[in-house]
């Protein structure tokens, strides 16, 4: 039989793979193929590739990218066949010609939370949520992608690396270089994305790791023993400028147009203390999703204005 998938166009080069556009020969369904060249790296198959396969082979959810196939080609290269998703949320946020209605934002946030909820109930941390990794299907569905940093939750005495999540979306416990953390790191990132959707600019754009700490706490207040017990024992908790927590009216001024329920949800997700931060269930059941307007139906969501 002819090759199962055709590769038509090279669209990008990731850290460990070349990405092609192509089609499933039999159905002409468009797909994306990550081709991993064999024997190219000093340390063999990249860990990100292993993670991506490990988690996406098992996760099946409308709001998570589908891994369609894994195959080795005749030439001995490993290929990951993924669902083809032409746009991402970052492109939309940056496209100034598009207006977001409150229903649009609610719809994207809802789909993000549903995807994250599915990961978390399978005990998987994504660890790299950002608008750039939230891909959009032509039908408007949002899907979590890039599981190259994902890992499953382990026993509490195991040390984890704090060097995860793209800087602007990094939770305070990661900024303090804690070696123990939970699903809460993903929810912080969702909170920052929520703010970004409302503001249309990155909410906490630190220039470097040090600046990120300053930017984060300037906006949300510096955590203290009072609202986060034992925070001062974390490795990187030192020389901090103490900023007060923002008052509600300050937040209202910053997020004009946000309803009280929207601010409640955002503050729940951006709670400094990970132990008190909202989990996906609490977020999904929050008043924000119950009040009007309804989340926009995915097909009616704004699309990129110009074809890239």
């Amino acid at each position, binding site marked *: *039989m*002819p*090759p*199962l998938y055709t590769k038509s166009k090279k669209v990008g080069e990731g850290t460990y793979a070349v990405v092609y556009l192509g089609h499933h*020969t*039999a*159905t002409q369904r468009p797909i994306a193929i990550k081709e991993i060249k*064999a*024997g190219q790296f*000093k*340390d*063999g*198959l990249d*860990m990100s590739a*292993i993670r991506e*396969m*490990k988690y996406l*082979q*098992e996760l*099946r959810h409308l709001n998570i990218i589908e891994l369609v*196939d*894994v*195959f*080795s*080609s*005749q030439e*001995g290269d*490993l290929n990951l066949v993924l669902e083809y998703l032409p746009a991402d949320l970052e492109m939309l946020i940056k496209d100034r010609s598009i207006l977001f209605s409150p229903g649009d934002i609610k719809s994207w946030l809802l789909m993000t939370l549903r995807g994250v909820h599915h990961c978390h109930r399978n005990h998987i941390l994504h660890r790299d949520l950002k608008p750039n990794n939230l891909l959009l299907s032509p039908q408007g569905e949002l899907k979590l992608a890039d599981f190259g940093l994902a*890992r499953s939750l382990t*026993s509490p005495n*195991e040390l984890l690396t704090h060097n995860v999540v793209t800087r602007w979306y990094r939770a305070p416990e990661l900024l303090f270089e804690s070696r123990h953390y939970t699903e809460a790191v993903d929810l912080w990132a969702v909170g920052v994305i929520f703010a970004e959707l409302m503001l249309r600019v990155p909410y906490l754009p630190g220039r470097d790791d040090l600046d990120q700490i300053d930017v984060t706490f300037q906006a949300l207040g510096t955590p203290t023993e009072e609202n986060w017990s034992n925070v001062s024992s974390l490795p990187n908790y030192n020389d901090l400028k103490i900023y007060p927590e923002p008052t509600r009216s300050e937040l209202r001024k910053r997020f004009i147009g946000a309803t009280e329920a929207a601010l409640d949800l955002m503050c729940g997700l951006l709670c400094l203390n990970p132990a008190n931060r909202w989990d996906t269930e609490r977020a999904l059941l929050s008043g924000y999703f119950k009040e009007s307007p309804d989340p926009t139906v995915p097909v009616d969501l704004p699309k990129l204005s110009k074809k890239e």
Partner: protein
Amino acid sequence: MVEIPTGPKGKLPQRLTQIKNKESTTSTTSLSTPNSRIRSPITPSVDISTVTNDTAQKTETPTNGNMASSSTEKQEAQITSTIQLSRPFLTRQQIKFARSKTIENPAIYNQRLLQLHQYLLKICHSFKFPMRVLEGSMYYYQRFYLHNKFEKTALINPLDVGITCLFIVSKNEDTIKKLRDLLILFNQTRGVTLSAEQFENYRKRILSIEFQILETIGFDFRTYHSEEFLIKYNKLLKVDKETSYISWLILCDTYQTDVSLKYPPHIIAICCIILNNKLSDSSLKLTTDYQRLRCEEKLVNECLQDILTHYVESFKITGLALKFPDYQIKFVHIKMEFNESKPQMMFHVDEKQKQQQHQDLEKDQFFQERDFTTGERRYMLENQKKRLYAEVDK
């Protein structure tokens, strides 16, 4: 439905029946073998089978070896495509059958396995790897030799396969070390010195073995940790820490055996606890409520028998023997007692069933020699089985 490009007309029905057959054999065997084992919620149930999804060429050609060359000659644009479903647990019969094809001399194989275990154990200690890395490495290693030839003439050194398994597991378990460092320590451990050039070649060889191992395990990176269950069950059964230590030692010794190929991790864990209970003189009340622990009793007994056999036959090389050299006789007694009381609580196969099973195995393409060099080789977990049959069953 997906449209499947078909081969020459008239050949398709033959292929269909083959696959149908396989489906039915799968379901019949699963009634009488551990395939029907009850699993813990985190261990997804798994099934099997390799299905060849190409034109009828494959069914026509007598051996797999000829298949490759003939198909490339006939049609250049055509590609042989095979699908491999992952199958992480196998029955005793299946393992025996697979090994009969790959291993000529079981004695040498076992000797190498134990030698490797020693080396990898040392490396795990040096790098402070958790024990589950050793568990996983031994699991991958043994899986590898179900489908690849283990002989003096084989091109790959078994020890190299072993260290590569450890390398893959260390990535999968998020305890990655640089391959270079791993190989330097491995060579030190076994007293091998290589020149810089030789070392570079060695590293490259390891990387090519890595890919072959990954294909053999079908890119299935799910992990099975008996240790987690051991700790949880011990807590649940209120075994104190000191006593439970022995069950942990037993668990570590199971890494020298092939129980991880046959039984899911919670079964292995409960077996270690049962054995510990029998070894300790304190008559600890063990409520073996198998239902609640989701352990099937027949499966537990089969696993117990395997572990007991290992202790009776190879006590001296086990880790437990280092701490409790006088336990050997205890194991002999436990095994005798077990043989008297338990056999009726195990899986029974009469001669006729055995023959049927053997025939099924002969037909099962999962156990055919694998070709990792030609065609498109697709890999799936069993959660895609529905899709697979939809594609093939057209």
